[in-house]
């Protein structure tokens, strides 16, 4: 155990030095670090909302809205397919969680079933074994057919709705111009929004709850934006800025041709001739009529798609779009096409969002907590250090070195995986300091036992390390188990605590065994001691 190969020793020494170096930026303010020369490490520990102050909202997507919309769409789809197959129906309606169709002539029910079965789509992931049909279509008695969404189909719809809701919420939150906001999915149907630095959630909530304005506008036929800026904007027109740098500003008629609430779907797709990525979209009846008459008059001219007063695209009208569905082609990649389709869909929120939890932390409390956390950490460290040196002397000092490396490793690991430090996280670090010395305590007590049993210096040390390992493993596994459960079940600061604890346990298992072992081995080699100083 104590015969350490040079290679091993060097690797561990490298890890120690690196972790000590890489944790340095976390002890300085971001302003100071940004002035450092480029070759110095700059990655810092990020702080959780409870330490830096800010607002936190947990929004839930109304799953029933999604279900209702889908049933509506299924009913319309069923009606259309039966009409196209020229099958007469006596009733099509939503009953509970399914669409019920009754064909007029019972003998046509087989044909109706065949037509309706084409609605079925495969969803889910076949590799994970979670694939299946999104709806189940079954024939009942007397020419009745039921179309029932499956659980897996609903999940997929909810997932899509959530993705577009997240996109919408992110756009709106970003428009506040606050840096480092977080908008992420939480569980199956929730969105977590974190905005650092704000106190008043009223504005944030208003912004999120607002209906987005997606609209299709007519582009001014002759005048460019530059001309308009020089010679004045014609009445009824307005300059709309481009959404990105690449998208130029446009001079558009202020009254839109069609509004986004008349859009029923938008999907990324591929052009059948050129196989270039495009976006296909469809309007409802009213939107289709308005868009049809507009596009027939403006073939060859551009129209602009505007989202929240910004031009996201200004494609050219190639041909009149009469059927209510059309396609947007341009220089899109698969990714940008998907992006735009999501933006179009997410123009309006797909379902109602309700606020289920919110919390705010003021900056004064945050900085108080940081101060308190610092004091507790320093006091805890000094206390443990004194205790260890009193109890184990030189070997206590070795344990402290391991502890310092352990702390550095926690900070480095957290800053590089991007885990935010929360107040419970600080508690986790402080607790780890107390707990991680346990491994060294076990080793040192073992060494004492072995020495008392009459072993020689080297073999007492060696078997002290060897025999303590099984126990160290057991104690760490139970701690890690608890930490993992904290991560799995907790949210927000509690999860931050779990993350810190888990990292701390793994790091301490490494440092307490390797670092001290190598220190003891080096001490044996250099000082050639004759007695164990504990």
């Amino acid at each position, binding site marked *: 155990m104590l015969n350490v190969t040079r290679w091993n020793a060097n690797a561990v020494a490298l890890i120690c030095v690196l972790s000590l170096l890489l944790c340095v930026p976390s002890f300085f303010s971001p302003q100071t670090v940004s002035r450092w020369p480029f070759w110095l490490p700059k990655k810092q520990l990020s702080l959780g909302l409870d330490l830096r102050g800010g607002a936190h909202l947990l929004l839930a997507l109304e799953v029933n809205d999604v279900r209702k919309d889908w049933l509506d769409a299924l009913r319309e789809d069923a009606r259309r397919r039966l009409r196209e197959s020229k099958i007469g129906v006596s009733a099509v309606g939503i009953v509970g969680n399914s669409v019920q169709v009754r064909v007029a002539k019972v003998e046509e029910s087989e044909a109706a079933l065949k037509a309706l079965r084409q609605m079925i789509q495969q969803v889910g992931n076949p590799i994970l074994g979670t694939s299946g049909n999104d709806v189940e279509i079954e024939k009942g008695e007397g020419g009745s057919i039921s179309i029932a969404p499956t659980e897996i189909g609903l999940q997929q719809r909810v997932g899509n709705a959530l993705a577009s809701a997240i996109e919408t919420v992110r756009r709106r939150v970003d428009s506040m111009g606050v840096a480092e906001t977080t908008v992420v999915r939480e569980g199956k149907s929730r969105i977590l929004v974190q905005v650092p630095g704000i106190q008043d959630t009223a504005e944030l909530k208003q912004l999120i709850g607002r209906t987005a304005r997606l609209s299709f506008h007519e582009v001014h036929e002759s005048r460019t934006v530059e001309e308009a800026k020089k010679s004045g904007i014609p009445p009824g027109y307005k300059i709309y800025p481009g959404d990105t740098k690449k998208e130029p500003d446009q001079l558009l008629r202020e009254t839109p041709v069609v509004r986004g609430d008349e859009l029923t779907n938008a999907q990324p797709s591929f052009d059948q001739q050129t196989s270039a990525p495009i976006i296909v979209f469809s309007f409802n009846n009213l939107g289709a009529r308005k868009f049809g008459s507009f596009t027939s008059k403006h073939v060859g001219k551009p129209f602009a798609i505007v989202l929240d007063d910004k031009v996201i695209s200004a494609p050219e009208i190639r041909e009149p779009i009469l059927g209510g569905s059309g396609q947007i082609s341009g220089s899109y990649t698969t990714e940008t096409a998907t992006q735009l389709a999501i933006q179009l869909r997410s123009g309006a929120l797909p379902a109602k969002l309700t606020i289920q939890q919110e919390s705010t932390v003021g900056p004064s409390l945050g900085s108080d907590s940081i101060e308190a956390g610092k004091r507790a950490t320093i006091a805890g460290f000094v206390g443990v250090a004194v205790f260890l040196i009193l109890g184990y002397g030189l070997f206590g000092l070795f344990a402290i070195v391991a502890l310092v490396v352990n702390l550095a490793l926690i900070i480095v690991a957290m800053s590089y995986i991007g885990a935010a430090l929360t107040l419970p996280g600080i508690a986790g670090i402080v607790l780890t300091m107390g707990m991680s010395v346990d491994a060294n*305590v076990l080793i040192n007590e073992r060494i004492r036992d072995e020495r008392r049993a009459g072993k020689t210096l080297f073999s007492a040390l060696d078997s002290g390390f060897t025999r303590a390992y099984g126990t160290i493993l057991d*104690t760490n596994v139970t701690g890690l188990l608890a930490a993992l459960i904290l991560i799995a079940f*907790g949210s927000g600061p509690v999860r931050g605590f779990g993350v810190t604890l888990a990292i701390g346990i793994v790091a301490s298992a490494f440092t307490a065994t390797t670092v001290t072992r190598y220190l003891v081995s080096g001490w044996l080699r250099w000082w050639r001691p004759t007695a164990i100083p504990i």
Partner: protein
Amino acid sequence: MQGFKFKPIEFIPPGTKFHFVSHWRLALVETVVLAIVAVVLLSTWGLNYGVDFRGGTMVEIRTKDGPADIAAIRSKLGALNLGGLQIQQFGGPSEVLIRMEEQPGGDKGQQEAIAKVQRALGENVELRRSEVVGPTVSAELVTSAIWALTLASLGIFLYIWFRFEWQFSVSAIVALLHDVVMTVCLFSILQLEFDLSIVAALLTLIGYAVNDTVVTFDRVRENLRKYKRMSLGELIDLSVNETLSRTIMTAGSVLITLVALFVLGGPVIRGFALAILFGMLVSTYTSMFVAAPLLYVIGVKREWGTDAPVRKAPTRERVTFK
């Protein structure tokens, strides 16, 4: 290493001979009494649940003009008819924590309540933090907290079973539940706020409190292989005594850090620190006075390490380990 003349203190001198197992009746009675007390306490006195579990609103404020007058705040806010109100000092003399039950009118209702509170308290008050938890989330948090605690206990039970034998596992889990229940009882008696962070503390406790027991049991297992003739009671006592120094050293360093956290960590984390601090203190006691005697009562099979049968080579055994 010349000049390094410092002699470390052995806080627990080697060769202690305390009796732990002989008090097993007392330990059993104490555990049963604790269980009864816990049931009675929780069903009558109950826990003071935080907004996470109960739903509702919590606001922390700080007065800008000197210490806060709790009585005045209470009368000001009482006039607003916001239903159940809890007002308490929190941390410094000018910091006050206000908790309201869930207001009618959904999310808007909660916001209006916070605004009303701010208006009623006037200009000289700073809003330090607020938290609003809706009924769906609070119900879910309760379920997931119970799940987490159950799963963690079960996981530890299975792990110890896997590493030792079921007798060890049962003793360890009883000791563990003893610590958790004791801590919950403390929160019930003192009516301290029981929120999500306390559940996190209990989970941590489950992971860490079992350590002392595991270390002791590890030594018991080792001694079972070593002293095949020693009576179980003596053997367990010996094992606890042998690991006593480690137990005290580790408990010492953990308690130092926890006291630092409790005293200096600030009011937000004080309950959390207290839960772990108290639980760890109890667990040090439990590992010696509950887990070890319980293991004695349940009994252990003695055929550990059958590679060296007892009867065939008794003399050699004795020589080797003297």
